[in-house]
């Protein structure tokens, strides 16, 4: 059962296509990291999922409902925190919670109190007087306390210092793990997302270039260094990203690492004497994919 399913979801602004034919499935209970550089279409995708922006074509199902028909009932089961969202700055934290509480039948006052303590939010302070980090925590609190089935976080870490980020992530992780929630978090800050996500989707220029479980992704990507490459390699092959060669040394990122068999294959293909393989973090994988996609973009342009 998927919490989110999109079919050829597309959104254009004039001639510019912000999101192109996106096909995405987010199983219920999973944590999806929607990654991509600025302008990749992450926010537009999430806005389409939240019925804030209408798709130009294609469709999306969110919690079993067409995203264009999301309404009162569905939003009682969805939490949405965005860096762009405008909170009523004239309210105090307490007033914001007072306002939100009657909107949700499932509001958990104990969880509210617990999160309030954990995030160290001053209930009497006006939202406009809060720092950005505290403001995001207040928004998160107002979206967690009713235990939503789906939590959507749009660039929640932008501009947050490491301590606040840690609080934020811990809050999401701990709360989400208790109820088996589905979480979708968009970010270009991969290191932080790495701790959260069990699935990764990567957007590049509005197109989905990767959608995979984190463990599988980290299992198949490797940083490879070859020694003793005696001849230049003009075309290192489709699964090789960021090929660099200096003299007899070469390095690249392998996108389909399959253990010793892959190492043997590289020795034979490139005539290398030695092969050193190192695992990669999500950040390194993201960077490699992003760099690999750029020449394509330039060509497309």
């Amino acid at each position, binding site marked *: 059962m998927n919490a989110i399913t999109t079919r050829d979801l597309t959104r254009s602004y004039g001639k510019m296509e912000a999101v192109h034919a996106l096909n995405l499935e987010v199983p219920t209970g999973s944590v999806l990291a929607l990654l991509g550089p600025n302008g990749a279409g992450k926010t537009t995708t999430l*806005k389409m999922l*939240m*019925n*804030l*922006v*209408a798709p130009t074509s294609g469709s999306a199902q969110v919690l079993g409902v067409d995203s264009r028909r999301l*309404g*009162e*009932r*569905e*939003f*009682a089961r*969805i939490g*949405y925190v*965005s860096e*762009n*969202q*405008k*909170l*009523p700055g*004239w*309210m105090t934290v307490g*007033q914001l919670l*007072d*306002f*939100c*509480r*009657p*909107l*949700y039948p499932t509001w958990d006052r104990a969880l509210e109190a617990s999160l309030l303590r954990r995030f160290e939010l001053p209930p009497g302070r006006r939202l406009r007087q809060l720092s950005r980090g505290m403001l995001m925590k207040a928004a998160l609190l107002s979206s967690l306390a009713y235990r939503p089935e789906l939590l959507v976080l749009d660039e929640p870490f932008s501009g947050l210092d490491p301590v606040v980020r840690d609080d934020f992530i811990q809050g999401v992780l701990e709360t989400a793990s208790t109820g088996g929630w589905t979480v979708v978090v968009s970010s270009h800050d991969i290191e932080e997302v790495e701790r959260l996500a069990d699935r990764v989707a990567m957007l590049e220029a509005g197109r989905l270039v990767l959608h995979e479980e984190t463990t599988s992704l980290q299992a198949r990507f490797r940083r490879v260094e070859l020694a003793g490459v005696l001849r230049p390699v003009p075309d290192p092959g489709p699964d090789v990203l960021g090929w660099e060669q200096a003299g007899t040394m070469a390095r690249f990122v392998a996108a389909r690492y399959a253990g010793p068999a892959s190492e043997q294959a590289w020795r034979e293909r490139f005539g290398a004497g030695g092969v050193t393989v190192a695992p990669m973090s999500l950040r390194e994988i993201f960077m490699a994919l992003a760099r690999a996609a750029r020449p394509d973009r330039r060509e497309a342009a």
Partner: protein
Amino acid sequence: MSVIAAIVRKDLRLLSIPAGVWLAFQAGSLLWFAQAPGFLSDDPGAWRYGLGVWVQLIGSAAYLFGALLAGLLVLEDPLRGTDAFWRTRPIARGRLLAAKVGVAVLLLVFAPVLARLAVWIGLDFSGTEMAVAGARALAHGTGFVLVGMAAACLSRTLAQQLFALVALGALQAGLGVAGAALAPDWSVLFKAPGALRDLPAWTALYLLPLAIVLPVYLQRRPAFAWALPVALVLLGLLAPGFVAATSLRWVGQAAHAAGASGNTAGVELIRLRTLPSGVVPPLRAWESPAPHLEVAVRQPDAGRALLRPAGGAGVVRRAGSPDLPVMLDRAPRVSDELLLALLERQRPGRVEWSLPLRRLGDASGFLGAEPAAWSGRIDLETVRLRELGRMPVQPDAGFVAGSNRVRLAAVQSPDQPGRPFRLVLEEREAVAHDGDYLVPGHRALLDRRPYKLDFFLLEIEGTRHVLQVEDGEGVTFGSVLVGSRRLVLPDRPWAELERGVVVKLRLERVGAARSVHVAGPLPRSEEEKP
């Protein structure tokens, strides 16, 4: 707590301070007007001219701020853009609208009336007065709140809201003007009540904002989002077009009726007489007791004669000749001399008067050259009297007539014998100037219209004297007109008052002044004269 209640509570919190200041401002200004020195002074005109400007300014400012507060209410949970907090919360658009309307009604429509209520009670208003004044304040408040909400529905920021407010205001004014210009024809053509004249203005005030607010709130993505601004611009362009078209029609009619040159037709004498009500259609529905006029004109020798309106608006009548339209001016000037003469010559149901005509120069009309025409103006004064009330000539005496209250605020004795007495008459009129808020069974005392002076007939112990009201206008605040009138009395009948005798005072309405502007083709014989 329901969703609506949660939003209402939040918005009440938001507006508590600005709306509180706004309400205090209204109540304070009302108190200031009521307590202002000079209200009962020797020169009430000074009070009116001194304070009246402030009354208008502060009254307008109160409504404008009301509209801005209504806009603030909408912009708190904006309908445009994708970053509003409420958009991803379980808040249905219908509930949001219901909550916003609830807060607006409570805080911006009813609360100002309650704030004024204390002042009205302090001014000793009757229950009827307060009810009528309250109804009027509610109606006006609702209109301005709707406009403010509509402007905010089209805006994302305060600056955009201000711009939209100005645009909507201009559009409404345009529609109102167009409606007023078109109204006389409606009355005549469809024999509709005169109140229909104000229909376009009311449409503009209420329906236009509603047509914006409802779809924007109730449709998630209004299909005509792009069409609204276009429609507004088109309507704005059409409004002056209505006025222009109306003017053209008047001129066209005049040019047509003038006929070919060489006519020897002319209008030499106009007889006027009052007619019982109901013989001719009433000028306006609520004026049915007012006298009416019939014009008898000598038939022209050839072609057709024409009586043109002095102003742009009027009521078409046919009398004497079936081809002769007579227009009554709605912004008449009063001739004291004529009034006195008419009063002197009053007969039940009939007054005659003649009009010497004078020649107008050749004029070029809108649709081409018009022949020179004769023109004259008759100031008509109707003389049907009705008793409005009785009161003794002593300060604080008064009477209530319909929804009006008249109080003799001061009796000023002359400094020396032979000089006129002065009465300062305070009149509270719980109806609008145009009579558009008349409560059934409570007619306005004076049937007041803008730019018109009122005349009274004062009868003391059976002797009639015409009084001129030197200051016949009041100012409206708190939705109730409070005017101060200085009645100049002839000195002779007041001798008894000086001996301390309480004299019965009878005030009677002399009626509304009317003007008829007369024009016709130039008679050949007159044309040839030097």
